[in-house]
């Protein structure tokens, strides 16, 4: 790792100020990707501004069907939140299966969505749940937020402060982990509402998280795993790497969608 300066921001305003002062300041909120990248000397920010301890960014609020999760809430906190478990257990299940205990106690939801790793779990949930990503400047619909591999609509000095969503009628998540990294090699989040079904796929697309038209079409007819029998997802625009071909990922999308639906239907 190159030498860097570490700052613990006390508020969002303080964080913005600190970043402005730095030559090449980067926000860090868990650092589950950034710190690794820095250790490999592939990133060298002059300053790290840690958002993880900002009080206003922490905590889960559930009010009826409305859920707000502060950006600095760790995966472990999301996984173990009792009110959330009652309102939307799929999110708790997702958070409980990110990485390992160390990652879950360091990594945050804000860090995860802002980083938009193409194999991260939260982006699939955000997209399928029609979530809103709240920043210090504006509110962005998930559909407009995730723009490509590690790319988002965020500006340089923009900080994710929370994510909000309305709990759907039913939802579920299932992922097939990469054997080595345990990131999602393919993960599918399905959410059913009166106006239709959304199914978002992570870990598989060559341009990051996306919605599967094939899966959504089948599940809109009948929200049941059997509706996906015989459904084929195109391997076009899916990733191929040493662990999985595009064809294999296409298969996994259908299999994981079935399992996600089964979980959603309880």
């Amino acid at each position, binding site marked *: *790792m190159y030498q860097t300066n570490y700052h613990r921001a006390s508020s969002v305003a303080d964080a913005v100020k600190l970043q402005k002062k730095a030559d090449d300041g980067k926000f860090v909120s868990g650092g589950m990707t950034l710190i690794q990248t820095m250790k490999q000397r592939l990133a060298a920010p002059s300053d790290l501004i840690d958002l993880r301890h900002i009080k206003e960014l922490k905590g889960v609020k559930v009010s009826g069907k409305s859920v707000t999760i502060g950006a600095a809430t760790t995966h472990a906190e999301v996984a173990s939140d009792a009110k959330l478990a009652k309102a939307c257990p799929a999110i708790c299940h997702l958070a409980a299966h990110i990485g390992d205990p160390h990652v879950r106690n360091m990594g945050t939801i804000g860090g995860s969505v802002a980083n938009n790793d193409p194999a991260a779990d939260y982006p699939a949930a955000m997209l399928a749940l029609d979530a809103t990503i709240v920043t210090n400047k504006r509110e962005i619909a998930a559909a407009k937020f995730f723009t490509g591999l590690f790319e988002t609509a965020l500006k340089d000095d923009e900080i994710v402060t929370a994510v909000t969503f309305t709990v759907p009628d039913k939802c579920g998540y299932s992922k*097939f982990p990469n054997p*080595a*990294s345990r990131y999602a090699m393919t993960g599918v989040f399905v959410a059913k509402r009166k106006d239709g079904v959304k199914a978002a796929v992570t870990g598989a697309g060559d341009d990051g998280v996306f919605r599967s038209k094939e899966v959504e079409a089948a599940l809109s007819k009948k929200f049941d795993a059997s509706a996906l029998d015989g459904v084929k997802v195109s391997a076009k625009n899916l990733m191929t790497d*040493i*662990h999985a*071909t595009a064809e294999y990922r296409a298969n996994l999308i259908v*299999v994981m969608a079935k399992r996600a639906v089964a979980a959603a239907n309880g």
Partner: protein
Amino acid sequence: MGMEGIGARVARKEDKRFITGAGRYVDDMVVPGMKHAAFVRSPYAHADIRKIDIKAAEKMPGVIAVLTGKELKADGIGNLICGWMIHSKDGSPMNMGAWSPLAVDRVRYVGDAVAIVVAETKGQARDAAEAVAVSYKEKKAVTDAVAALKSGAPQLHPEAAGNLIYDWEIGDSAAADKAIKAAAHVTTMHIVNNRLVPNAMEPRAALGHYDKAEDHYTCWTTSQNPHVARLVMSAFYNVAPENKLRVIAPDVGGGFGSKIYIYPEEIVCLWASKKSGVPVKWVADRTESFMTDAHGRDHVTEVKLALDKDHKITALKVDTIANFGAYMSLFSSAVPTYLYATLLSGQYVIPAIHCNVKAVYTNTAPVDAYRGAGRPEATYVLERVVETAAREVGVSPAELRRKNFIRSFPYQTPVIMNYDAGDYETSLNAAMKAADYAGFEKRREKAKKAGKLRGIGMSCYIEACGIAPSAAVGSLGAGVGLWESAEVRVNAVGTIEVLTGSHSHGQGHETTFAQLVSQRFGVPLDQVSIVHGDTDKVQMGMGTYGSRSGAVGMSAIHKALDKVETKAKKIAAHLLEADEGDIVIENGELKVAGTDKAVPWFQMALSAYTAHNLPEGMEPGLKEGAFYDPSNFTFPAGCYICEVEVDPDTGQTEIVQFVAADDFGNIINPMIVEGQVHGGIAQGVGQALLEGCVYDAGSGQLVTASYMDYTMPRASDLPSFKVSTSNTPCPSNPLGIKGCGEAGAIGSPPAVINAITDAIQNNDLAMPATPQKVWAALKAATRH
């Protein structure tokens, strides 16, 4: 058997310091004035070095020295060598290319060391290493051994035309061909043994200290065999004469073979210490370990197995291409020859065997022995082809094996080995019983109802360890002898130190070796200390690899204990005014048999050192040494049975049962033996299901350079193993023990793959059997 003697499940003495984080590894060593090194490494798989500009790096903060291969060569530091001479079948010696510790004009793999930077801190050294400007002219690279043999392939070394190191054979080709032609059935397979990265928990490290006043070097290094390191660095690399070079291998966090070899880094750190005037420490990071530790396996093999109409095996023909990487590592040449082809008879009577091996240079990390070394490759070829043959002719794989077992010993195979003892059927029966082999079809049916494909696979392995005798390995080309040494020092108060040439890096020698002593003299375990790993403390020894410490290292201790016992009895007889032949050692006393006359052990020892009352003419003191050279290899064997369930939707394999029935001869500490078997199976399962080193074929870049892409086995990937042992004592050493360190890694991969291929009904499946590969094989499933 006492509570602490041979056969007792004694908790490991060394674990207290390991578990409490108090172990002392090379990176824990601090020498006054010590500075830190970073290596400049090639980012290319193959390139000419046009120019190395160190000016900018020298000006970086904290930099003490920037040194390159040119200066190293000018100082007369030698090239790295392979110490086992293999001759091709045309009689020509192997074609060994030059390996300079720092590349001078060409780099041949990603990670090849080019320069060393010494600086005040590790961070400064790394920063400056990045500032060394190396101008490369990239060349075409080849990473696959089969491709490297093709005409027009990029050429690595002028000494090895066509990248061919040797083209070696063993056995009778004509007899094998004749038997195959006459066979009732021939099974033909193409088998790849995947390349593995050793991944010891502790990365390699070296601390070189040149003492100007004494003109003396000390090297702390992560070595499995510090004396061999000293010998090779002294005799071949011209670092320093042996009496001016002390090598210390303190606590070492795992080796699995990868720390047998002498690497460029320890040589360069020693040289750089003299050059820069400061002690120089280097510790690899994990990526350096992936890039530069000697890798394992990487064979491509065509095999034919011939059966007669009664399903007796009549011939085995094997054609293997072995990837050696960019340079010949220290023992690399022996691995796919004398540690591989000589084991191809397995547990079976096979009248005709022939094996041809081509060793090949490629633009990848050097390949050398890794847990099992050649024997896993042999077992994988044989046990997959035997299982497949059974399926093809429609008989039970267990019965085909049973029909062909060797049943009388000694047994001379057609490929050098002379098996001294074994009872393969006992292991087979024990494993089948523990696995409830007979009940498998019911379990398969039950799994089918749950939507899972269940399969069962078997592997009957044999291995050869405790490689010896020295004269025999010498005649096969080894540059060293493979004996072991021991010295037993009884102190004046009766406590005992054992100085052993073996090296413990996880094996538990401090416990098992002490058990041997405790058993002999009735001395409590905590009064026996094992000293190893320091050339200044311990007499010349050969180190630990190839499961040799029990069979060879402990036999040397046994021999030294014999001498101590003889002298101790003489002293006791003198003190008790009895006949030497009447003295027995029991419960910490030397007694006159059948009487109550006795002298405590400590008192006898004290008498040896006060020397007030010793037998006429006896020298004072009680210290004896021994060198032990075994009369033969020892041959552990066993039967492993793996049962899996495959999820047909994803290709995910779950190992639902794993049974190991091993014959290790006499056992010193069953708990430690079980630990070795568990660890070996974990590594074998790792090879079968998870681990695979991948280079990009075009660029030669290492794709699996971290745990993000290289899948290490985790606890959750493994079931609880059912292990048992049987015992046919080894007749070739005085303790009757075999070796247990590698068996798990040798025997398990074919059992796992045979189970999966049974589940998916497709014999065409390569390791690692990742979910994607199993899914694809299932889709293509047609039994061949």
